[in-house]
């Protein structure tokens, strides 16, 4: 059967991992290539790298990082940050990304999705959707969630569940769902919206934002939790709190189907 994926995510600024990286037994360099290589060797199911640089020079540095990382790993690589047009997608794929995460441009230029799907296939498009809870209006039972863009600085007025359904129709291959309310809190994923979207949308959903413990990964993936197909996390791995094999062992012991940890590169 298909296993749930565990995806460490590296936020890259000016060519360096931000938030800091402390692997057990490795120098703390903040070097994304070293970090990605370590996660690959630990048996991460996939790697995600997001460029949070806002400058043109930063983009070039990021492309170079993608090229170097892609040259070091034998795992799928999802890459995003500042993808606005077809040429951005092409540059990232040519640099070695397997999938490209598109965020704000989904809202500002939704025609990009069918264009990319026709040229490169739906499987290489990951819709990065950032959501936050908004206050319920009189008469609304539950407070709805809205889609935000530009790193959460701009409201779109789009209702999150309907928007994700629309993205699936447009032809994206996966949804990377990040809760702005939970991101960085280490209190766990927003299980409510993760579950709603996982249940309603016919493409895989990657839960993101808020992981502080192994239990949070389990909750996000469980049938009685977020129902996500994959769990993305950053700091619990970067700070060396847990290794990928430890996380997989925990998930396996709690009935989440995962690929057994791969402990060496002997083949």
């Amino acid at each position, binding site marked *: 059967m298909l296993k749930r994926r565990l995806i460490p995510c590296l936020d890259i600024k000016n060519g360096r991992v931000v938030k800091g990286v402390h692997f057990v037994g490795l120098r703390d360099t903040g070097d994304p290539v070293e970090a990605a290589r370590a996660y690959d060797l630990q048996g991460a199911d996939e790697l995600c790298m997001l460029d949070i640089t806002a400058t043109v020079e930063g983009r070039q540095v990021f492309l170079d990082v993608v090229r170097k990382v892609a040259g070091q790993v034998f795992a799928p690589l999802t890459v995003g940050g500042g993808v606005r047009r077809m040429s951005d997608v092409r540059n990232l*794929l040519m640099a070695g990304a397997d999938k490209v995460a598109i965020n704000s441009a989904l809202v500002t230029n939704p025609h990009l999705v069918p264009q990319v799907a026709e040229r490169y296939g739906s499987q290489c498009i990951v819709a990065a959707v950032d959501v936050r809870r908004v206050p319920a209006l009189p008469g609304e039972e539950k407070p709805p969630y809205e889609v935000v863009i530009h790193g959460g600085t701009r409201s779109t007025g789009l209702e999150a569940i309907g928007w994700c359904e629309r993205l699936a129709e447009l032809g994206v291959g996966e949804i990377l769902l990040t809760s702005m309310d939970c991101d960085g809190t280490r209190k766990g994923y927003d299980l409510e919206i993760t579950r709603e979207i996982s249940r309603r949308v016919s493409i895989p959903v990657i839960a993101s934002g808020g992981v502080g413990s192994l239990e949070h990964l389990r909750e996000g993936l469980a049938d009685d939790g977020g129902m996500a197909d994959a769990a993305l996390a950053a700091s619990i791995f970067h700070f060396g709190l847990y290794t990928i094999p430890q996380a997989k062992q925990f998930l396996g012991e709690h009935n989440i189907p995962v690929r057994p940890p791969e402990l060496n590169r002997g*083949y």
Partner: protein
Amino acid sequence: MPREVTLVDANLGNLNSVERALVQVGASVTLTDDPNVVATSRMVVFPGQGAFGPATQAVIDGSMGAALRMVIGRGDPFLGICLGMQMLFESSEENGGQEGLKVLPGKTKRFPDGMKLPNGRPFKIPHVGWNDVQPSGDHYYFDHSYYVELGDSSDLMWQTSYGPIEFPAAIRHENIIGCQFHPEKSQTAGLRFLRTFVLGGRS
């Protein structure tokens, strides 16, 4: 002596990772988009990603398609990866129906839309992630919405199930090997698969 492998660049995606994985397992790789080079090769890897559509049709109908048929017909070891495997069969349902290279009987079908699984989750398409293949139980990385339905069940090498669907993870017919998964993205298991092909011409 490293094994000489010709990696076919039919403009169906970035081949760096396939090339690097082949080099890692000891192959000497010639990356080419020239049908003449392909036609005279003694071991060929044909990767593909994306959609079965106009781009694949151009390959199938053009001189590259003729070169691929020539290598296969001559009996030299041939590995098709993902779309490169699907293209070996008669036809695909994708993009309103497409014809394949027709070197093997069978067709490519889309996973059924709109189904629910017993655990309450939708049956999601594409099939993305690591799945085990039988009989070995090893895990490989998949990312696809279409799968091959074999016309001759004896071509089955490894099987995988996704929800209610069982499909070939890998196929074998004489000198032809095909895999639906991405060995170049499947860490140790994938490298082992490629090494076996490169060393023996079979997996």
